[in-house]
């Protein structure tokens, strides 16, 4: 069955999410949102009823009633199992930069800001890094500004951190301060990943291809997830599930 890169990524992310209690997804993240809803549909099929999915941009898929601090308090309580972050830059130690490029006193580029990353990255057990521009501009040897650090000294309280980085080209896992290439998406190669990645990473002798989503997964995405996603991301749903156009490189 044919599928779009968005569907491949959502499938992979849903698998990384796994069987957890609560996945929260930030604003403007349609693919992670699709993945979280897919994980929930899988949970329904398996009879677990998990995970809860909070789409922060949605009033329908959100359970918050204690104001803007509740997400962070909830994460601090250990009740958020999975969250998604990105970065203007991401480096090989898992540091992310959401603030600026260049010298801090005179930056050349300014991004919006760190949002909640400087807290959530430390207390959410599975943070999935998501960046669909896989290039030496975004995946760098060392970020110019650390919005949130990929790892901490042993005495620093830390119950969370990055577990994976998924891009338009491949999937990395993250452990002990380093990324490992897990699989390369169909149509991409290991050499291409090396060429476009600014940081060192580990890889097995044979890097598998990221498996295509099964027919069952595609049916769940198209029949169950897309209708729920539509209220929050109408343009994304129209494009991917309607016109079946990808915004990502093939």
């Amino acid at each position: 069955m044919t599928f779009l890169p968005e569907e491949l990524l959502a499938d992979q992310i849903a698998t990384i999410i796994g069987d957890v209690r609560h996945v929260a997804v930030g604003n403007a993240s349609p693919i992670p949102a699709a993945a979280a809803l897919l994980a929930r549909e899988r949970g329904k099929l398996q009879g677990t009823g998990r995970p809860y999915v909070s789409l922060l941009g949605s009033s329908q898929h959100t359970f918050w009633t204690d104001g803007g601090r509740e997400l962070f308090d909830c994460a601090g309580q250990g009740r958020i199992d999975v969250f998604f972050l990105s970065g203007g830059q991401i480096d090989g130690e898992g540091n992310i930069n959401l603030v600026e490029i260049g010298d801090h006193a005179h930056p050349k580029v300014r991004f919006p800001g760190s949002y909640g990353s400087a807290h959530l990255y430390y207390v959410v057990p599975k943070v999935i890094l998501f960046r669909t521009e896989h290039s030496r501009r975004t995946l760098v040897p060392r970020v110019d500004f650390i919005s949130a650090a990929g790892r901490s000294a042993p005495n620093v309280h830390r119950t969370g951190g990055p577990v994976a980085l998924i891009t338009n080209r491949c999937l990395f896992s993250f452990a002990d301060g380093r990324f490992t290439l897990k699989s390369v998406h169909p149509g991409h190669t290991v050499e291409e990943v090396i060429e476009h990645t600014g940081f060192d990473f580990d890889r097995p002798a044979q890097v598998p291809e990221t498996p295509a989503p099964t027919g069952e997964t595609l049916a769940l995405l198209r029949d169950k997830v897309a209708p729920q996603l539509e209220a929050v991301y109408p343009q994304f749903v129209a494009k991917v599930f309607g016109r079946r156009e990808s915004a990502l490189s093939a």
Partner: protein
Amino acid sequence: MTLQTLDEAIATITDGCMLIVPREVCGVPMAATRALIRRGVKSLHLVALPTSSLQADLLIGAGCVATLETSAVSLGELGPAPRFTAAVLSGAIRMKDATCPALHAALQAAEKGVPFMPLRGLIGSDVLKYRDDWKVIDSPFGESDPIVLLPAINPDVALFHAPLADEHGNVWIGRQRELVTMAHAAKRTIVTVETIEKRNLLDDPIYAAGTLPGFYVDAIAVAENGAWPLPLPDRYRADVEHLAMYAKMATSEAGFGEYLARHVYAEQPLSASS
């Protein structure tokens, strides 16, 4: 509570004061923001709890802001906030970068009348590194357990827009409870509302649960569509077309000036339906 005009209500937002405003989905006081720009307020220490979009961009572009304390400014799916970005790069504003829960916690410190609040995370980040006003201590309840202490943020004025107030000055804020924390933390609270009803919100337990008592509210003005072109939760959505126009115009200083002339300095701000 005496009902005031918009300009009367914002009169106490004086040059140089610390003004706190809420994030986009909470009731951003856009009508009041335009009135502030028309009045030419200067040198604000603007705290956006915990992020901002059009509001911060407008105030910065119009030269009202000296210091900005927030976790992010962006126009969301419409891209970067152009005047914010330009002002940071040119050094026109002093930036105090934070992270969302740090701002919430620092407000809660003020709400509780304590000088600081602890927060997990942050250690090893440059957000912490560039905040001389944040301190790291060893938690006295652990062994070699460093933790960040954030000083209380005590704003001079909290300003927000809400759907409804009653004639006693009680304001219905619903689930937007950071508005309550803002009002508790600030020396003065100024609220614009869609409408004022002749009733007492505190008499109805269902409404009371989402009500900020009038005791905390210093001034109220009616501003219909007062969050426009931003959304008001459960009432109206964002005016995406207008915001897209802004995002385009504000990429240049000239375009931004034209936006101000047309949509801010013009005596009657456009309503959502125009």
